[in-house]
C-alpha cells in the first residue's frame, strides 16, 4: 500500500504525504544500489509481471532491475510476441496473467486508462508504466526525487516543462506531483501543443522559451515524438529546435548556473536538446535513470511487501 492506494496508476490520486512516502523510501533504496552486493531479500518469493504493449527499453529495464534488486521474480511479457497479435483482448490477457498469481502487474499501454481498466479486473496490485497521454507516475516520482536530490526541496522552486505538453504523460505526472511538493510550474511549447485550460492545474503558460526558462530552478525538456513531426502541430524539427530547443548558447545566456535540466529520454539530440546541453553541466539526465530504479524499488516494495496480496488470500 502507498498511503490509501493499492495501485500506482495516477499521481493525480496521490496526496503530498503519499508522494513523500515513496520519495523518502527511495532514498534508502538508492543506498542499496550502492552496496557491493546489490540485492536484498525483501521481496523474495513475490512475482512481478512486466506487461508492455508499447516499445520501451528504459522503463522496462528499470522495473526489471528494481524487482531483481529486491529479489522478486520477474516475467517480461511483450505484446509483439504474444497472443495479443492473435486477437486477445486486454482484459483477457491480464486475467490470464493473473491466473499465474503475480503480486504486481506493471503495465504500459498506448491507450490512456488501460492500467485502471486492468486494475478493476484483477486482484493484484497494478503499476502504470505509462498509459497513452494520461500519466507516467513512476517518471513523475523519479523527476520529483531527482529535483529533491539536486535542489534540496521543491518548496518555492520554479520548474519549467518545455515541449509537447498535450501528448505528454510525463508532463501530466509532473504537474500532478511537483506542485503538491510546493513547486511553481511553467509550461512552454508551440501553441498547438499546449492543452486548453491547463492553467487550472496551477501552471503558467509561456509561448516564448526564454520567458519560460529564465530564472527557473529546473527545466523538464520533453521528447518530441517522431510520429508528431510533419503532422500539422509543428512544421518540422528545424523550426521546433529553433524556437523550443535548448542549445549551448541559449543555456549560457538564459539559465541560472544552478538550473538543472531533466529529460525523460530518449533524447532527440539536436531537436529538443543540443548534444552540448544534453551532456553539459546542467544535465541530470543520467541521474534520473539511476534514481528511476530506486523510485521503482520503493513503489514495488510498498505495493508487494507488507500486506498479503488479495490474489493470494
Amino acid at each position, binding site marked *: *500500500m502507498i498511503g490509501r492506494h493499492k495501485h500506482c496508476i495516477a499521481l493525480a490520486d496521490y496526496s503530498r504525504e503519499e508522494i513523500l512516502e515513496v520519495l523518502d523510501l527511495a532514498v534508502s533504496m538508492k*543506498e542499496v544500489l550502492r*552496496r557491493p552486493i546489490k540485492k536484498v531479500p*525483501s521481496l523474495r518469493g513475490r512475482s512481478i509481471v512486466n506487461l508492455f504493449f508499447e516499445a520501451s527499453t528504459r522503463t522496462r529495464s528499470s522495473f526489471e532491475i528494481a524487482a531483481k534488486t529486491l529479489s522478486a521474480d520477474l516475467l517480461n511479457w511483450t505484446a509483439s510476441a504474444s497472443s495479443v497479435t492473435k486477437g486477445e483482448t486486454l482484459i483477457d490477457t491480464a486475467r490470464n496473467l493473473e491466473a499465474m498469481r503475480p503480486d504486481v502487474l506493471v503495465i504500459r499501454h498506448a491507450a490512456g486508462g488501460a492500467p485502471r481498466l486492468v486494475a478493476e479486473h484483477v486482484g493484484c496490485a497494478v503499476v502504470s508504466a505509462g498509459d497513452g497521454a494520461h500519466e507516467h507516475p513512476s517518471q513523475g516520482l523519479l523527476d520529483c526525487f531527482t529535483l529533491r536530490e539536486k535542489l534540496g526541496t521543491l518548496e518555492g522552486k520554479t520548474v519549467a516543462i518545455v515541449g509537447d505538453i498535450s501528448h505528454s504523460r510525463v508532463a501530466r505526472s509532473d504537474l500532478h506531483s511537483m506542485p503538491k511538493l510546493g513547486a511553481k510550474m511553467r509550461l512552454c511549447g508551440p501553441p498547438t501543443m499546449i492543452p486548453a485550460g491547463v492553467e487550472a492545474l496551477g501552471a503558467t503558460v509561456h509561448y516564448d522559451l526564454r520567458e519560460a526558462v529564465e530564472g527557473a530552478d529546473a527545466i523538464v525538456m520533453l521528447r518530441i515524438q517522431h510520429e508528431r513531426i510533419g503532422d500539422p502541430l509543428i512544421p518540422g524539427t528545424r523550426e521546433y529546435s529553433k524556437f523550443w530547443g535548448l542549445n549551448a548558447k541559449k543555456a549560457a545566456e538564459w539559465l541560472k548556473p544552478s538550473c538543472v535540466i531533466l529529460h525523460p529520454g530518449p533524447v532527440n539530440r539536436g531537436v529538443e536538446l543540443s548534444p552540448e546541453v544534453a551532456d553539459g553541466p546542467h544535465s541530470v539526465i543520467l541521474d534520473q535513470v539511476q534514481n528511476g530504479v530506486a523510485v521503482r524499488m520503493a513503489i514495488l516494495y510498498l505495493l508487494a511487501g*507488507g*500486506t498479503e496480496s488479495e490474489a493470494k488470500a
Partner: protein
Amino acid sequence: MNAAEIERLVRRIGKDVAERAQGAGAGHDLAIVGIRRGGVHLAQRLRRELGRTLGAEPPLGTLDIALYRDDLANQGAAPVIGPTDIPFPIQGKTILLVDDVLYTGRTVRAALDEIVDFGRPRRVWLAVLVDRGGRELPIAADFAGARLECADGDDVQVQLVEGGAAEDAVIVKPGRRS
C-alpha cells in the same frame, strides 16, 4: 534500571569487548555496527568506551534490517526503512554487532544476513544491553549487560538519550499473562 546502572553496564561491556579484542589480536580491525534504531545509540557509547581503552575509536556503522525481515508477509503495512550506512569495508574485520535488547533473535539473524552481503567479516560478536530470553533461533549474545527473565508478553523498553544520560532507563512493562 536507572541511568547509573546503565552507565556501569555500558562500561563493563566496553571493557569486556576491549579485553577480548586484544586477546584475539583484533584491537585494530574491530568495527562497530549498531542495529537501527535501538542499537545505534548504544553503539555510539560503546565506541567511546572502546576508544578510551583501545586508544583509538573503532569505525562505526548503522544497519537497518527492514529489507531482511522474515515476517514481511505478516505485517499490516510494509515497515518503514531507515538508512543503512557502513562507511568501511567489512572484509576481514571483527564486527561488534550492537542492539539494545536481545529477544527472539530474529533481528540478529536478519542483521547477520545483511552484514555478509556487505563482505566477509573475520568474525562477528554480538553485544546487547539487555538479554531478556525468549529466543526462537539458536543465537546468543557474546556480551550482555544484563540478563532478565521476562515472560513472552512483557515489553522491555530501553531509553538512551544523547547528552541527557540522567534520563536513561530500562523499563519492563508486564504484559497480559495468559
